[in-house]
């Protein structure tokens, strides 16, 4: 019988030099983190790059002794991934675009988007918080949330993919939302910007 070793124990073993523990951590969370990043960038190569950058940061932070979120490894890694996704979008939009009209409008390239950026940051933070909570739901509820909210699948498709009736898929979604609301209240997350 295989014993389940929790993330905190794997981290401790890794910091004592057991590199296989890192492999276990990556393997355990690979799909969730990859899906999380993919749901934001919709590009496999970019996702792979961000995934690697995320774990490089994880490795460095752990070895530098700066990790202090014992027991919350996955939400911590998700936050790192989320911040790297934001960096990716910032870098892609950094260069102003000039469309080549005969008149050059300085305000077309110079705009104060501080307020929008702040709102976006708050929205991203809320999204990150909620994503972290989704992983506290039962597996079948996580699945329906992921497929519906992040992958934009219809309930018919969800039902087909998971091998249940549409009513069951709808029921799982309903309970997922009820449980999410409870978790949001328990964790005192504010959902307005």
């Amino acid at each position, binding site marked *: 019988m295989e014993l389940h070793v929790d993330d905190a124990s794997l981290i401790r073993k890794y910091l004592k030099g057991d590199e296989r523990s890192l492999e276990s951590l*990556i393997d355990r969370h690979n799909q969730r*983190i990859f899906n999380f990043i*993919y749901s934001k960038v919709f590009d496999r190569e970019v996702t792979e790059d961000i995934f*690697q950058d995320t774990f490089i940061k994880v490795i460095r932070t752990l070895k530098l002794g700066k990790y202090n979120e014992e027991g919350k490894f996955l939400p911590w890694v998700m936050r790192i991934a989320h911040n790297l996704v934001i960096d990716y979008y910032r870098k892609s939009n950094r260069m102003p675009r000039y469309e080549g009209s005969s008149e050059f409008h300085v305000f077309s390239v110079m705009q104060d988007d501080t307020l929008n950026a702040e709102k976006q940051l708050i929205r991203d933070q809320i999204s990150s918080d909620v994503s972290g909570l989704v992983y506290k739901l039962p597996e079948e509820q996580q699945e329906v949330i*992921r497929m519906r909210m992040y992958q*934009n*699948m*219809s309930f018919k498709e969800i039902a087909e993919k998971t091998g249940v009736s549409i009513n069951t898929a709808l029921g799982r979604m309903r309970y997922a939302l009820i449980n999410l609301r409870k978790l949001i209240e328990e964790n005192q997350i504010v959902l307005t910007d």
Partner: protein
Amino acid sequence: MENPNQTTHINTDSLKASDEAVKFLLDYSKSYSVVKSRGLVFERNLN
């Protein structure tokens, strides 16, 4: 016109980092170390 009911089907089973990406991370971890000396912290990457 874009169909508002159109959905994107993604096969989540295959959505995970490649073996190469994981191997790169494991190699990176083995080559990366932190050295503390006289109150200073040095990061070292041996390839």
